[in-house]
C-alpha cells in the first residue's frame, strides 16, 4: 500500500531540528528528523511521551509554544516549504490543506463558543462561505463523523457533549475543508477504550472516502496496527526505525522497537509470562548522550554506539524498511 516511489511525497520533512530555551541555554528536543508522507498514505508516528512527536507536527504549521523554536531543516508540503512560507500563505494551509485533530477535545474546543460556530470558522475563512452555507456544510460534516441529530447538536456548547462526541467534532473541524493531510495528535488518549476503537474506525473509513493522507501520532502501537500503512518510531527526537506496518510487526529491527512491541500484551501468551518493559527513562533535553540516544538504555550497545550517532539506513532485502542502529546494521551485513 506504500505510495509509488516515483511520485513525489505530499509531505517531505528533512533534517527538522527543534530547540527549547532553558535556563542553561538552548537544548535540542527534535534532532534532524526525516519523515515522508505519500499521497493517500497513512503514517503512524510512535514514541514515548516527550520524544518530540507532537512538537514535530506542530512545527509544520508553526504552532510551537513560545520558548520552542525550529532551528533547522525543511518541511515541504506539496512542493512548498512550510517553515519558510509567508504568514498569509501559511494561514491558507492551516485548516485548509492540513487539518489538525488535537489530543484533548475538552480543552481544544473553545468552551464559550457553540460547536457549530467553531465548525463554521474554517469554512468561512477558507471557502468564503456565508453563514447559511457554512451551517449547512457543518451539519453535513457532523453527520459524516457520526454525530446523531446534527441539526440540534450544532447549537450545543462543548461541555454539553460527551468526550467521544467532542472528539468527533474535532475531527469534523479537521476535515471541514477537505484537507490533503489530516494530522491527528494522540486523538484517543483522553477517551475510553471502547470510544478509542470507534474513533480509529471512523478515521479509517473517512480516509478512504475523502482520499486524504493521515499522520496519526500515538504512543499506542497496537491501537493503530490496523489503520496505518507505515510506522515511524521516534526516540528522543530522532526517527530510529521507519517501516511498512506489516514489516515492522514481523521484523522489528531496532532494539527500542523490539522493546515497544514486547510491551504490548497478547491474549495468546501464557498466563505466567510477564510483560516486558524497557528500563530507564529517555534522556532529558539538553542531556543527550554523545552517541546513539538509546545507547544508555540498550542491552546490545557497543562502544561505537556511545561514540557516534547512527544514520537511518535501509534494511537489506526489504522494501522501505529503514533503521538507525549500528548493531542491527552489522548483524544484517553478517547475515547477508
Amino acid at each position, binding site marked *: 500500500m506504500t505510495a509509488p516511489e516515483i511520485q513525489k511525497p505530499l509531505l517531505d520533512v528533512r533534517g527538522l531540528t527543534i530547540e527549547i530555551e532553558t535556563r542553561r541555554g538552548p537544548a535540542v528536543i527534535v534532532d534532524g528528523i526525516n519523515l515522508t508522507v505519500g499521497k493517500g498514505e497513512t503514517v503512524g508516528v510512535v514514541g514515548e511521551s516527550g520524544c518530540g512527536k507532537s512538537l514535530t507536527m506542530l512545527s509544520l504549521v508553526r504552532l510551537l509554544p513560545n520558548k520552542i523554536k525550529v532551528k533547522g531543516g525543511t518541511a515541504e508540503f506539496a512542493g512548498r516549504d512550510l517553515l519558510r512560507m509567508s504568514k498569509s500563505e501559511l494561514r491558507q494551509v492551516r*485548516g485548509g490543506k492540513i487539518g*489538525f485533530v488535537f489530543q484533548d477535545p475538552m480543552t481544544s474546543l*473553545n468552551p464559550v463558543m457553540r460547536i457549530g460556530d467553531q465548525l463554521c*470558522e474554517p469554512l468561512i475563512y477558507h471557502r468564503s462561505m456565508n453563514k447559511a452555507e457554512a451551517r449547512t456544510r457543518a451539519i453535513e460534516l457532523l453527520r459524516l463523523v457520526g454525530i446523531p441529530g446534527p441539526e440540534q447538536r450544532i447549537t450545543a456548547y462543548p461541555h454539553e457533549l460527551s468526550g467521544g462526541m467532542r472528539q468527533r467534532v474535532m475531527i469534523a*473541524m479537521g476535515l471541514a475543508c477537505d484537507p490533503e493531510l489530516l494530522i491527528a495528535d494522540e486523538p484517543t488518549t483522553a477517551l475510553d477504550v471502547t470510544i478509542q476503537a470507534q474513533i480509529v474506525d471512523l478515521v479509517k473509513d473517512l480516509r478512504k472516502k475523502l482520499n486524504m493522507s493521515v499522520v496519526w501520532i500515538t504512543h499506542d502501537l497496537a491501537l493503530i496496527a490496523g489503520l496505518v500503512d507505515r510506522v515511524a518510531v521516534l526516540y528522543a527526537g530522532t526517527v530510529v526505525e521507519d517501516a511498512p506496518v506489516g514489516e515492522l510487526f514481523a521484523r522489528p529491527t531496532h532494539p527500542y522497537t523490539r522493546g515497544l512491541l514486547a510491551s504490548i500484551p497478547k491474549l495468546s501468551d501464557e498466563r505466567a509470562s510477564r510483560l516486558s518493559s524497557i528500563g530507564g527513562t529517555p534522556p532529558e533535553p539538553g542531556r543527550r548522550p554523545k552517541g546513539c540516544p538509546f545507547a544508555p538504555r540498550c542491552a546490545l550497545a557497543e562502544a561505537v554506539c556511545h561514540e557516534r550517532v547512527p544514520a537511518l539506513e535501509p534494511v537489506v532485502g526489504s522494501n522501505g524498511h529503514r533503521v538507525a542502529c549500528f548493531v542491527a546494521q552489522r548483524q544484517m551485513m553478517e547475515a547477508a
Partner: protein
Amino acid sequence: MLRYIATRLLLWIPSVLLVMLAVYAMAYFGAGDPIKLIFLRAPGDVAYNPEKIEAIRDAAGLNRPFLVQFGSYILNLIQGNFGNSLTSGRSVWAMVSAAAPVSFKLGLCAVVLTAVVAVPLGMIAAMNQNTKVDYAILGSALFLWAIPAYVAGPLLMVLLILILPGGSVPYGWGGIFDVRILLPLLVLSFQPIALIVRQTRAAVIEVLSEDFVRTARAKGVPEMVVAFRHILRPVLTPVVTQLGLIMITIVNGAIFVELVFGLPGLGRLTVSALTNSDYPVILAITLIGSFLVMLSNLLVDVLYPLLDPRANDTMRSR
C-alpha cells in the same frame, strides 16, 4: 433568576443593617450631643442652657434608649425618610439627591473610560508579553496604581497650569460635557484602569496558553479574529467579575477627587458631613455606598452565565 436576585437582596439587608448599626452606635456614643452641636453653631446662649437642651432632646426623641432610636431610624428609612441634616436642617434626601447625580455621572464615565482604555491595553501587553511594549504598559499601570488620587490630582493641576497660559484652574462642576470634567475623570479612572490592565493582561496570558487558541490558529482563523473571538471572549469573564472591586475603588477615589477638584458630589458631602459630625448624612451615604457595591456584585453574578455558558447549569440549579 428573579428568585436568585431576590435572595441576594435579602442576604444583603442583614449585612447593611449591621454596618448601619455600627455607624449609628458610633454616632450615638461617640460624636457628642447632636443638639449641643447644633446650638453651638447657632447664635445666642442656647448651648449653655441645659434645661432648654433637655427639652429639645425630649422633643426630638433623643432621650429614648439606643435601640429604640435605631429602630425608629430604620422604620423611617423604610418609608423613605432619611431624616434631616444636623448642620443645615435640610432633608438628607434632598442633599443626597442633589449631590448623587454628580458622583454617579462621574463614576459611570470612569467605568466606561476604564473599560474602553484598560481592556485593549491589557490585551496589547499580553500579546507582546515580555517585550518593551508589555513593560511600558505594565510599568505605567503599576505607576498609576501607586499614585493616590489626592496626589495625582494636585500634581496634574500644577502641570496643567504650567502648560496652559492664563492660569485658569479646572475647578468645579459643569456636567459631563464640560471640559472641566476631564481632569477629575482621568484621576478617578487611574486606579481602576491600572487594576483592569493588570487583570486583563493576566487573563489573556492564561487564555493564550489554552489549547483552543491553538485549535483556532490550526484552523487558519485570521489573527484578528483569534484575538477578538477566541481570546477576548473568555477573558471578559474574569475581568467583569472585578466590577465590585472597581466600584469600591471609584467610591473611595471619588471622596478625594471631588474634594481636590471642588465637585459638589457625594464625596465632598461625605467629607463635610464627617467634619461636622452630621450623622444622618453619613448614614445615608454609607447606605448608598454599600448598595452600589452590592448592586455591582449582583450585576456580575447575573452577567456571568451570559459570558460563560458553563455557568448556566449551576445557575439554574440554584
